[in-house]
């Protein structure tokens, strides 16, 4: 597997002296889906702005497919990596949706018909047809979010970097967006790096997590990270509710080898456990149940 992104010993200080990143090391394989988690102000956005060369590395370096970002030309970086920002209003800068989506391809030097093809494809795959001539300020927040994703997709980058894609979306639009992203990864093998506070979305959205809090605290599969109670607590992180719930069911004698992270996993896990136990399991309150529940509570409690 090739490395899509390599970050080596990256540190960054804002001009006013705020240390936002310290000694960050990171490796993302091609086709992988990575989630970056960490509290408000952890440096997630700052890190992402280094990936596409918006911020020059002051210390350390970033490589895309083995090439140092600071030595690449803008046009080359843009071909490799597309970035969707936190606030869609920052990134929809043209008066209509069509112009905005066409903006990237035009900058890449494509000609009329190619541009139109790219725009059509992006619009189709995000279900935005009919919106081409709309002004961004007449879109709902969820639509703006999808539009900003379409604008980046039209550039057909090999890596997609997304800053809190699910924030402020209603549950329906959120599910829809998650589906779209996974399809992109599936069908076109696009590598993804996603910063998010939405822990319930992580199991569906990421193969691996980087926990960031100015420095990289830990990396691992969602399961590995969510299992590390101490790590979670120290870095103000959280765990999906389903995971917590199955964890507490263990106090009642539920014997689950693998705690589920999403509802789907929960159902299939439940089915499997019951089936392997001969179609039938017990839950009971035994002498240690209450102590165990208490411990469980402490593990996830934030205060």
């Amino acid at each position, binding site marked *: 597997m090739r490395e899509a992104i390599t970050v080596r010993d990256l540190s960054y200080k804002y001009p006013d002296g705020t240390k936002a990143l310290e000694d960050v090391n990171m490796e993302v394989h091609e086709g992988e889906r990575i989630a970056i988690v960490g509290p408000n102000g952890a440096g997630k956005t700052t890190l992402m702005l280094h990936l596409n060369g918006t911020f020059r590395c002051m210390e350390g370096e970033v490589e895309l497919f083995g090439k140092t970002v600071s030595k690449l030309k803008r046009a080359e970086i843009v071909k490799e990596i597309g970035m969707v920002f936190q606030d869609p209003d920052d990134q929809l800068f043209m008066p209509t949706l069509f*112009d905005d989506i*066409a903006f990237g391809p035009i*900058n890449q*030097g494509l000609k009329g018909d190619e541009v139109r093809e790219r725009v059509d494809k992006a619009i189709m795959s995000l279900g935005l047809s009919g919106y081409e001539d709309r002004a961004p300020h007449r879109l709902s927040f969820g639509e703006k979010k999808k539009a900003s994703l379409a604008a980046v997709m039209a550039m057909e980058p090999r890596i997609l970097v997304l800053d809190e894609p699910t924030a402020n979306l209603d549950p329906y639009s959120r599910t829809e967006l998650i589906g779209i992203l996974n399809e992109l990864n599936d069908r076109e093998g696009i590598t993804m790096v996603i910063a998010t506070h939405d822990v319930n979305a992580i199991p569906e959205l990421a193969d691996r997590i980087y926990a960031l809090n100015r420095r990289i605290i830990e990396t691992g599969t969602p399961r590995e990270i969510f299992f590390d109670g101490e790590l979670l607590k120290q870095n103000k992180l959280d765990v999906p509710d389903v995971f917590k719930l199955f964890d507490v069911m263990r106090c009642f004698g539920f014997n689950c080898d693998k705690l589920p992270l999403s509802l789907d996993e929960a159902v299939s896990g439940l089915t499997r456990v019951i089936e392997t136990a001969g179609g039938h399991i017990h839950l009971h309150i035994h002498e240690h149940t209450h102590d165990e529940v208490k411990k469980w509570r402490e593990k996830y409690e934030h205060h």
Partner: protein
Amino acid sequence: MVEYPEIDRYSSLDSVMHRFDPRAKLIAFLILIFSIVLLQDLKLAFIGLLGAILFLIASKLPLRFVLQHIKWVCFFIVPFILIMPFSVHGTGIFHFHGLTLTYEGLEYGILVAVRALAAVIIVLPMIATTRFDITIKALGELKMPNMLVQMFMFTYRYIFVFVIEFQRTWRAMVARGFQMKTNLYALRTIGKALGTFFIRSYERGDRVYQALRARGYTVKPKTLVEFKMRASDYVWTVVIIGFAVSLHVVPFVEVT
């Protein structure tokens, strides 16, 4: 508190003006506006105004919308009409507390008003019949420097973002009991609120620049447009420019 620009609210109607090629439309009507504001003769100015009204009618824009957009000019013109008849020397028609209302002054005042009104009326078929972003693109096609075209695009887009943002801030201020009066406290508060607003706008400017760069922005490229002149576009261009020119040439020919 602040209003939204809605000049292209009726750009999706259908009329000869709506179908007119935006580039030709801009050129032709700009020439007409310049031609009318330079008229010196009241009769000709009235003919210009009549022409302007005909073009406006041809554009099928609703009357309410039209009145809303020309009311500002009417306010602006009022002091001229009220003061000029008394300040220009000439044949007195009417005396009033030592002031003399003159025929020449009245005529000049009306001339100014008619020219102003005609010009602002022409702006409507020129601008309000095309989506504003397309008008900006047309300017680009007409060889306006690319830097300026892009500034128009981005500025136009962010006006909407900021109107909404400012409305929200204003609501938050009112919700905390603030009342706009003309006193020092209110003015200084407005000053501080505007200061915050500018800081946020400036920071947004940074983020917009980052987003632009992330999509490979260079100053060079243009937007994708396709304008095509059709026979009817040529006809209208000739009609409008012909009218503009004849306002100046015909009286000259008559005299000689």
